[in-house]
């Protein structure tokens, strides 16, 4: 059975592009009031315009998920605007690929800050409201890299995504029964997003581009469909993990 999500309220981080933007559009089309959060305000405004033109409802929030004050400020505005929050999509993430002996420690720290701490910050800011409501649904974007370590260059990214998968599972165990909050960990393989562009190591960048020419990556909207599928499941059904790949990706 599929339940309507019309009228629900969502917060999506990393909404300025890729999976976040595509999911905002799909949820809005299903009648969800979407709060789109990211650092790039101009991108958000363009997306908000697109959603509104299609008859949807959107609130754009310039937000840095690594900054707790910024996150709390944004969530406060969301609650003031809509009065509740039903769906949190922790989607902001970066993937600068490099091997450890390059010691790009700035990139390592940025991945830990955005991919892990960003998820924790936003979850901490939103959960009190969901607990009070005794309902809610948290989605976290992990990755196939949160299930296995591909090989040279992916150590830190994989570590952050293993963390997201582990946190999702632990959170689910704690808040499912106690607070009636569902937790879904989405684990995509190759998706056409901006992720490869974040790699500064030229050799790794070439490898990523070469792989992308061999396998037709998924569209961001394919992942958005999976999010909508899990969100539309009846309240007693929690899609805990969903692993989704391009058909050709081994």
């Amino acid at each position, binding site marked *: 059975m599929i339940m309507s999500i019309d009228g629900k309220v969502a917060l999506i981080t990393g909404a300025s592009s890729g999976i976040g933007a595509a999911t905002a559009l799909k949820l809005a089309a299903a009648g969800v009031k979407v709060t789109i959060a990211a650092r790039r305000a101009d991108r958000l405004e363009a997306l908000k315009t697109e959603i509104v033109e299609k008859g949807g409802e959107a609130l754009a929030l310039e937000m840095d998920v690594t900054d707790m004050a910024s996150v709390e400020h944004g969530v406060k505005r969301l609650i003031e605007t809509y009065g509740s929050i039903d769906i949190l999509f922790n989607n902001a993430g970066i993937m600068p690929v490099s091997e450890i002996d390059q010691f790009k420690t700035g990139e390592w720290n940025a991945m830990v800050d955005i991919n892990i701490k960003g998820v924790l910050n936003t979850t901490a800011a939103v959960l009190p409201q969901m607990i009070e409501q005794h309902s809610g649904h948290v989605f976290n974007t992990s990755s196939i890299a949160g299930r296995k370590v591909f090989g040279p260059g992916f150590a830190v990214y994989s570590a952050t995504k293993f963390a997201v998968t582990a946190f999702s599972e632990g959170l689910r165990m704690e808040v499912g029964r106690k607070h009636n909050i569902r937790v879904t960990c989405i684990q995509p393989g190759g998706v056409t997003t901006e992720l490869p562009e974040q790699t500064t190591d030229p050799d790794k960048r070439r490898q990523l581009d070469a792989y992308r020419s061999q396998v037709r990556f998924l569209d961001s909207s394919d992942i958005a469909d999976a999010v909508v599928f899990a969100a539309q499941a009846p309240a007693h*059904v929690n899609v805990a993990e969903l692993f989704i790949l391009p058909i050709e990706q081994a």
Partner: protein
Amino acid sequence: MFEKLDRTVALVTGASSGIGRASALRLAKAGASVGLVARRAGRLEALATEIREAGGAALAIAADITSAQEAAGVVARTVSELGGLDTLVNAAGLMLNGPSIESPLDEWDRMVAINLCGLMYVTKAALPHLVEAAAGSPRRVADVVNISSVAGRFAASQVAIYSATKFAVTAATEAWRQEFAKRSVRFSVIEPGATATELFEQKAGQWEGFTSMFGEVEQMHPEDIAEAVAFIVTNPRRVAINEIVVRPTDQA
């Protein structure tokens, strides 16, 4: 957005009840002709009638898939009478949990026979037809959806052999997925938590054993899992949903 399954053929094992039955109904509703497999002929005929009366096409095949020969026969009949094979749902399953010293060895053998060997025999016979469908059908894709269990991800006391069979299903699915990725046969595994089927009734005391670990939970319905099966199979060709873990919201 999602594809219809008109002019496709699905084969569903364990179709006499629970997740298999619900999946067969759901795939028929999406347009597939459905081969129904289980041992209980009466149940299958009733389901086939229900599907036909709703405007669908169904073929009841009473068989014991723990026999490799019968499993191969099931696949052959489906292909010859329904015209091919695009989708295989391996839903037949048996759960006989309990203390390992007291449990008869026969119970363990039967779980291995149905949960692993049965799935293995049907899948083996189906593979050439699925590859052919993926290469030659208009959709250019075929699907195998295996029903494992959360017990295929997490082992627990008194669930040793059931868990072992379901870990095996999860592992085999992932290996097949990699092997057939380039040939457009998608392999998926669904790992449900507690679902209101006959599974817990297959041996006395199993529900009590479950609730002693997890408390009372609002179980999922077979239709909830069937919806995941349909989501997997009707996704556009380029999208392979390889694994879905799905639990009752209140099952830790």
